[in-house]
Structure formats: C-alpha cells, structure tokens
C-alpha cells in the first residue's frame, strides 16, 4: 500500500477510530455531551480533511476503492449530512430515557458504511459497506426499544434487508460466475467484449437491482419505507432517508456507468418501469397520508424516482443532476425531519398532521422553514428543490427520455397536493392547545434550531444562487 493509498482512506480511518474512541469513552464514563462532542468533532475533522487534503484527482486503492471527484463529492455529502443528523440528534435523545451514548457509535458506523459504498469499486467493498450500514441501522431503528413501533420497524427492516442482501449477493455471485471478476471495471471490460448480455449475467444484474432497489426504497421494494420511517427515532429516520440512500445512489451510478449499463436496452427498460412506478406509487401513497413521517417516506419513494430519471437519462448532465438533486434532497429531507425532531416532545414524535395545525401562528419561524422545506420538495422556485428538479428535467430532456420527463411532471403535480396540504394545515386558524411540552432547557434546542436555520438558509441559498454548487459539482465530476 502506497502512502497515497493510506492517505486516501484516511476519511474511513477517522470514522473507524472515532467509533472506537467512543467505545472507550463510554467504558470510562457515560456522558452524552462528551460523546456528542467527539462525534461532531470527528465528523468535522473528516469533512475538513476531505476538503483540504490534496492529491491526484483520481486515485484508486486497488482493488477496493476509487477516489474520484464523484466519490469524494458523495463521501463529503454523506459526512456533512451525518453531521447534520448528529446535530439534530442531541436534543432528541437528551429527552429520552434510554441510554443515548451507543447511538453515536452506530451513527458513525453507519456513516462509515455509507461512505464506503460511495467510493467502492468492488463487490467486496460494496458488500462490506452495505452490511456495515445495514447492521448499524437495525439497531438504530430499534434504538428506542421500549417503543413498540421502534422494534417492529427494526425487525421488519432487518428481515427485509437481509432478504434483499441475499438477493444481491446471489446476483453478485452470478455476475462473478460469468465474468470472473468482482471489480466493476473488469466486469465492464468483460461485457464490452460480448455482443449481448448473457442470461445469467442478466439475472445477476436483476438480483443486484433488487438489493439496490430495496435500499433506495423504489417500487416494488418500497414497502418497508413507511413502516421503518414511522418506527425509527426521528434522527434515524432522517439518516435512513438521506445518508443510507445517498451512498447507494452513488454506488448505483458508479456501477452502472462502469459496466456501461446504458447500452443494454433491457436494463434501461427495467429501470424505466421501476422509476415510473416509484414516482406514481410514492405520490399516490402520500396523497392522503395523515402521518407526516409516513408521508415523507412515501414522498421519498417518489423523489428517488425523480433522481433516477436523471440517472436513466445519463450523460454527464445526468450525473450532475443526480449529484445536485442529492444535495437538494438531503438538505430538504434532513431539514424536514429536523423540524419534526425540533417539534417532538419527550413522549412522542411530532408526526400527525394535527400536530401542525396553526403552527404558523404558534411558531412562525419553524413553520416558515418547514414550508420552505416542503416547497423545496414540491420543487417550487427560490428553493434548492426547484433547481434540482430543473436539473433533472434538463437532463431528461437532453437525454430524450420524454416519457420519464412527462411522468415526472405529472407526478410533481400530484405531489404538490400533499406538500401544500401540510402548509395549509399550518396556516389554519386555531391550533390544538399547546401543552408546551419542552421540559428541557431551551438552550438544548438551540443546536437543533440552529441546524434547522442553517439548513433553511442553505436551501434558499442554493435555490437562489445555485451557481456555486453547480460549479463545484462540475469541477469535481469532470475528469
């Protein structure tokens, strides 16, 4: 291993060591604040390292990892999002009675897994990343183990994740069986020597798609999403919605482009069907949903569909669009769940629509940022979501995937309904009597509030002046 190799995987090291450090720290003394500090600092350090570390534009750590612009970008995105989730977690868990400290270990490990996915170029690293992520998530989802729904979510996620992992592994085995390699590039090279996709290979791809589809929560592998989102503690939900999906999207894009999946009509058709189904089913499921967590879950299904529209459209613009939309979507999703977190009290999460009644008049700022988040999800200008959607439509139009573009437009229109419904409810005149549940010092909420504010500003900033972000993505993505 060369020095550059080592240097490259420092981000992973930092996370690993942070996890170990927290373990030790817990062994010495349980202190939520300290652990929280360690987590935040290590994530920050990681981000800073990633930002300042110099090195070649692309560096591969054979055979497992590749550090190119796309990988770095996604890694960075995952780390930042993880940081944001951490920020939101503190107040949330501080209210709970469970032991809070191990959560951070799991969080860091899950981030590690997702990060690994983002830079992997080999089935083994893929598998490891995926499983580190998954296993951590099982525990995270069921973390508030006294809550029935938490456990239910955990077990559902576990069984389904393992089930789909099995599919994916079997698929990888089939691919390996045919091509003789587990490295994406080599598989691509093997395939390019063949006139068409061998049937076993095809089956392998199909099984891998099942696994990936599960993680992304696209139709028909989406059914767990709502239950898990609902059952999991809010910060975890936001983590699942963002980091875990982001890593897999990065992986999918890399894998697909390396094996050059665009040339296989059947794959394109499969994805097209899945994407259209995701958009439609997600939106229709969300349409009259009364539980905001579930609603956001269903909306995430359709949003993944939107992202994959750009993915199918392909090309450099498609890749950019995916990256950009991920950013926008992450900001928005973390922001939305952050607001839910912010509004949650000791006993239960703020998740029913009734909890938001008259929010505009009770907590105008919170409501305003939540509206901004929802409008961003709906793709309304002045928000990042709009530019993101614009980007995707641009990619779709450029790639001539008209069917998908039209479906996207149609679905955006359907989606409008349930987003603005929440806003409408927040505007309603009288609210339920506010029992003022915050039993903690207000200063604790400061962090959450601050994070939400930062996210809102970022949302609006990216929505109004996307130039910088687009420039960054372009510079990283262009070889």
């Amino acid at each position: 291993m060369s020095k550059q190799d080592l240097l490259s995987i420092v981000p992973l090291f930092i996370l690993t060591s942070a996890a170990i450090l927290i373990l030790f720290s817990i062994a010495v003394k349980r202190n939520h604040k300290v652990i929280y500090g360690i987590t935040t600092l290590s994530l920050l350090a990681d981000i800073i390292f990633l930002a300042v570390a110099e090195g070649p534009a692309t560096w591969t750590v054979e055979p497992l990892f590749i550090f190119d612009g796309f990988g770095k970008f996604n890694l960075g995105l995952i780390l930042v999002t993880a940081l944001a989730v951490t920020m939101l977690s503190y107040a949330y868990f501080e209210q709970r009675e469970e032991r809070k400290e191990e959560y951070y270990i799991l969080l860091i490990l899950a981030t590690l897994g997702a990060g690994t996915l983002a830079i992997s170029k080999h089935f083994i690293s893929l598998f490891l990343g995926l499983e580190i992520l998954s296993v951590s998530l099982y525990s995270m989802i069921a973390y508030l183990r006294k809550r029935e729904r938490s456990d239910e979510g955990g077990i559902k996620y576990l069984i389904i994740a393992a089930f789909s992992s099995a599919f994916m592994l079997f698929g990888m085995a089939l691919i390996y069986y045919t091509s003789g390699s587990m490295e994406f590039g080599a598989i691509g090279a093997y395939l390019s020597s063949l006139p068409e996709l061998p049937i076993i290979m095809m089956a392998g791809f199909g099984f891998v798609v099942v696994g990936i589809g599960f993680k992304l929560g696209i139709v028909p592998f989406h059914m767990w999403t709502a239950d898990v989102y609902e059952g999991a503690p809010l910060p975890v939900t936001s983590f699942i919605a963002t980091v875990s999906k982001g890593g897999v999207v990065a992986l999918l894009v890399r894998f697909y482009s390396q094996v050059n999946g665009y040339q296989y009509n059947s794959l394109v058709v499969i994805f097209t069907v899945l994407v259209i189904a995701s958009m439609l089913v997600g939106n229709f499921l969300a349409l009259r949903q009364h539980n905001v967590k579930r609603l956001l879950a269903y909306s995430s299904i359709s949003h993944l569909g939107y992202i994959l529209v750009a993915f199918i459209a392909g090309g450099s613009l498609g890749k950019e669009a995916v990256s950009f939309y991920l950013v926008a979507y992450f900001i928005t999703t973390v922001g939305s769940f952050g607001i839910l977190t912010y509004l949650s009290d000791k006993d239960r999460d703020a998740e029913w629509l009734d909890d938001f009644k008259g929010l505009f008049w009770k907590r105008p700022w919170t409501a305003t940022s939540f509206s901004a988040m929802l409008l961003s999800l709906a793709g309304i200008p002045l928000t990042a979501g709009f530019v993101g959607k614009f980007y995707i439509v641009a990619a779709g139009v450029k790639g001539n995937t008209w069917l998908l573009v039209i479906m996207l437009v149609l679905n955006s229109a359907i989606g409008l309904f349930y987003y603005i419904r929440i806003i409408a409810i927040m505007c309603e005149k009288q609210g339920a009597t506010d029992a003022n549940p915050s039993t903690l010092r207000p200063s604790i909420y400061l962090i959450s509030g601050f994070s939400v504010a930062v996210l809102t500003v970022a949302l609006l900033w990216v929505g109004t002046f996307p130039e910088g972000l687009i420039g960054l993505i372009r510079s990283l993505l262009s070889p």
Partner: protein
Amino acid sequence: MILPGFIVSLMGGGILAWIASQKSLVLTRWISLLTVTVNLLGALVVWWQQPGVSSLWLLDYSIPWIPQFGISVHLAVDGLSLLMLLLTFFLGAIAVLISWKEIQNRVGLYHFCLLWVLAGITGVFLAMDLFLFFFFWEVMLIPMFFLIIIWGHENSRYAAFKFFIFTQASGLLMLVAILGLYFVNGNQTGNYTFDYFHLLEANIAPGVAMWLMLGFLAAFAVKLPVVPFHTWLPDAHSQAPTAGSLILAGLLLKTGAYGLLRFIVPLFRDQAMVIAPWAMAIGVFGIIYGAILAFSQTDLKRLVAYTSVSHMGFIMLGVFSFNELAAQGVVMQMITHGISTGALFILAGFIYERIHTRDITRMGGFWKSMPFLGACGLVFAMASLGLPGLGNFVAEFLTLVGAWQATHKFTIIATLGLVAATIYSLRILQKVFYGTQASATMLVDLSIRERFIMMALVVSIIWLGLFPQPILNTSKQPVKTILEVPDTARTKDKSMQIEIVSIQGKGGRYE
C-alpha cells in the same frame, strides 16, 4: 438599474413591511403603499421618457446568474412590458389601499405576500431569459397561495389548492418546453442559453416546435384561462380576499396573455398559425361559455370570475388572429380588463364588508343607500359589457375588427358574446342595485378612501376609453415586432408560408 430595482424594491418593501408590523400596523400599510407608489412613479417616468416609438427596447439589464446553464438575470422593457408594469403597480397600489381596513389579522405577513406577488408578476413581465421567466412565473404563485388560504373566505383551502395545482402543473409543462427549446437551440448553435433574444432565432423542426409550443401554451392557457382549464378561476377568485381577487383577475391572468404575445407568437409563429383556428375556436367558445355561466351564478365574486373567463376568450381570439389590430386589441384588453374586472371585485369586496355575504339573492336596492357605489357599479358593469367610451370597448372592438380580418364565423360568435355580456352585466346591476333593499339596516356609502380607489379606477377606465392612443402608441412597436415575420423565416420554409396563406384564405370567405 431601474429594472431590477422594481423587483428588489418590492421584495425589500415586503420584508420591511413585515418587520414593521411588529411595531405598527399603520406603518406596515404605509410602507407597502409607498413601495408600490414609488414603483408606479418609476414606471411612469420610464414611460414619460421613452424616446419615441421608434426604439423597441427601452431599457435592458443583464447579469449572469447561473452561467453554467447560460442563465442570466436578463430584464428588459419594451412598450408592452412597460404597459404591463404600469398596470401592475397601479393595481398593486389599489390592492394595498383596499386592504387597509379589510385585513385586520396578520397584517405584516399579508403585505409581505402582497408585495411579493407583485414582485413575481413584475419579474414575469420583465424577464427576457426563459429560465428567469419561469422562475418568476412560479414565484408569484406561492404568496398568492398564502393570500388565498390565510385571508380567504370560507372555502379558501379548496380554492387555493386548485389554483396552485392547476397553475403549477401547467407551469411544469412549460418548463419542459423551455428546456426542450434550450437544448434544441443549443444543439444547433452550440450556444446553450435561455436568453429570449437568442432563442428567437432558433431554427426548430416543425414537429418538435409544435410540441414545445403546446408546452408553453399549456401554462398560458391555464393561466389565461382557456375554457376547459378555467375551473380553478371561479373558485380562486371567489375565495380570495378582495386584493387577492383583484390581483388574480387584474394581473395574474394577464401574465398568461402576455406569455401568448411574448413567447408563443414570436417563438413558434408557424405552429401557432397552424393551431390558430383551434385556438380561436376555444377562445370564442370560452367567451360564450363564460358568459352563460356568469348569468346563473349567485355568488357575486364567482359571477365576476366567470365574466373574466368570457373576456379572456377575446384574448385568445385576438392573439391568434395575427394582425396588428387584434393584437393591439389584446393589449388594450389586458389593461382594461384588469381595471374593470378588478373594480368589480373591489365592489364585491365593499359590499361584502357591509353585508357579509356575496350572495346576490340577498342583495338589492343598494342604489338607494349607496348611490356612489351604485354609480361605480354601473360604470364597471358597462365597461364589462363593452360600452363605448370605456376602455373595454376599445379593446374588444379592436380585437374584433382585427379578428374579422382573419376569421368570420368566430368573430360573429364573439360579437354575440357582447350580447351575452350585456345580459350578465345587467343582471349584476339588477340584482345588486335595483329593486328594494332586503335588509332594513341602512348601509353606509363608500368612505373617502374607498371613494378614492373607485375614482381612480373610474377615471382610468374612462380615460382609456376616450384617449387610448397613448397606450396604443406605446405598444405599437412591440406588437409590430412580435407579429412581424422575420426575414429569415420568410425564406426559410416556403411550404409553411403557403399553408398559412391557405388558412387565411379559408377564413376569408363568408361562412
């Protein structure tokens, strides 16, 4: 610098008004009134100083925004935009004034929304970059949505949703079309840009162009609205607060008409000519359909809303007649309809403030207790039925004269729409002002502020009816440019030209 100034000042004024509401509501109202008035004066100054009719673009402002996509903040004003700006600020000021007493809760937020709607509309009228245009197109909806849902009437949620989803969904189709245009042009010229002036020269294959045009048309047709897509309008108009209805009817609908003139005709001239008979047909159908529906409504605001549907049919007819007369008529129609229908909504608002109902079966005999209101109602009912001497007549007559050059049968039907307009307009007068007053309580006639508002509207509608020429002069050059077939297009496609001739020829006979 004055062009971005318009938009920024409105946005800034909105924020300022919101902040000021913490201290004093009166201050909030004054801030927003002042902001709009200053803008109105600014626009008037631009109008005053315009260097004759010869130069098309009076002001131009451009800075890059998202250079990666060739998007810039490109604002420019020609006569057409200028007129629309004047209308926007004029009605904007009136909207602030009518809200003075009507809005008593969450005043700061209200004025914020109001000014931001105006900012969005201003942006739509100024944007010369298609992305920017779309941006503003969508931006104006959100504050409008809030205006309807927070300060609206009993069924405001349904109305707001309908409004929002209709306009958004159609807007997205336009986005797709804009992007299509962008890439078609970019692939051809290598210059990927959203700039209007560049895209004007795009050379698009007819089949593609048709689809692109339909995308644009979807957005404009819903906004205008054209008949099968009009159903959001009666709900939104009747549920919105008075200022909301005023802005909806007076300005928001005009963005659709403006879009037809600014984008559909110059960008997709040939395709627009192909669909012109259909477009005119549904326009004319809308005239009659809206008028018939208006007649049976019992909700005063809903009634007026349907008259809007009817009047907007003239715009479809005029735009797709492709001649200067009709197009100038359309421009006049945009302005005069904004004023007259806005005024009718304001009247409905005044009445609502007094008797707390919009049901015309519970009105009657108001002439006795509120003669001033009655006189104003008379003026605007007459404007609505196209009485000469009031601005709407000039608009509709020009449109019809122009349309006659293009099509006979549609023009005849549209002219019959004038009869229908008479029927519903007189019904308003009959039900509201004639007869005996149902309730025994004496109603107070308009206050000084209300009188001022009405006088401003009455004077302007009469002025437009008697001296429309300054307006027509201002819009003359832009309209000509929009209609003019550029030299390149003339030689570009001979067969298309022949087709146009045959279409026109078809309309030339007496049918």
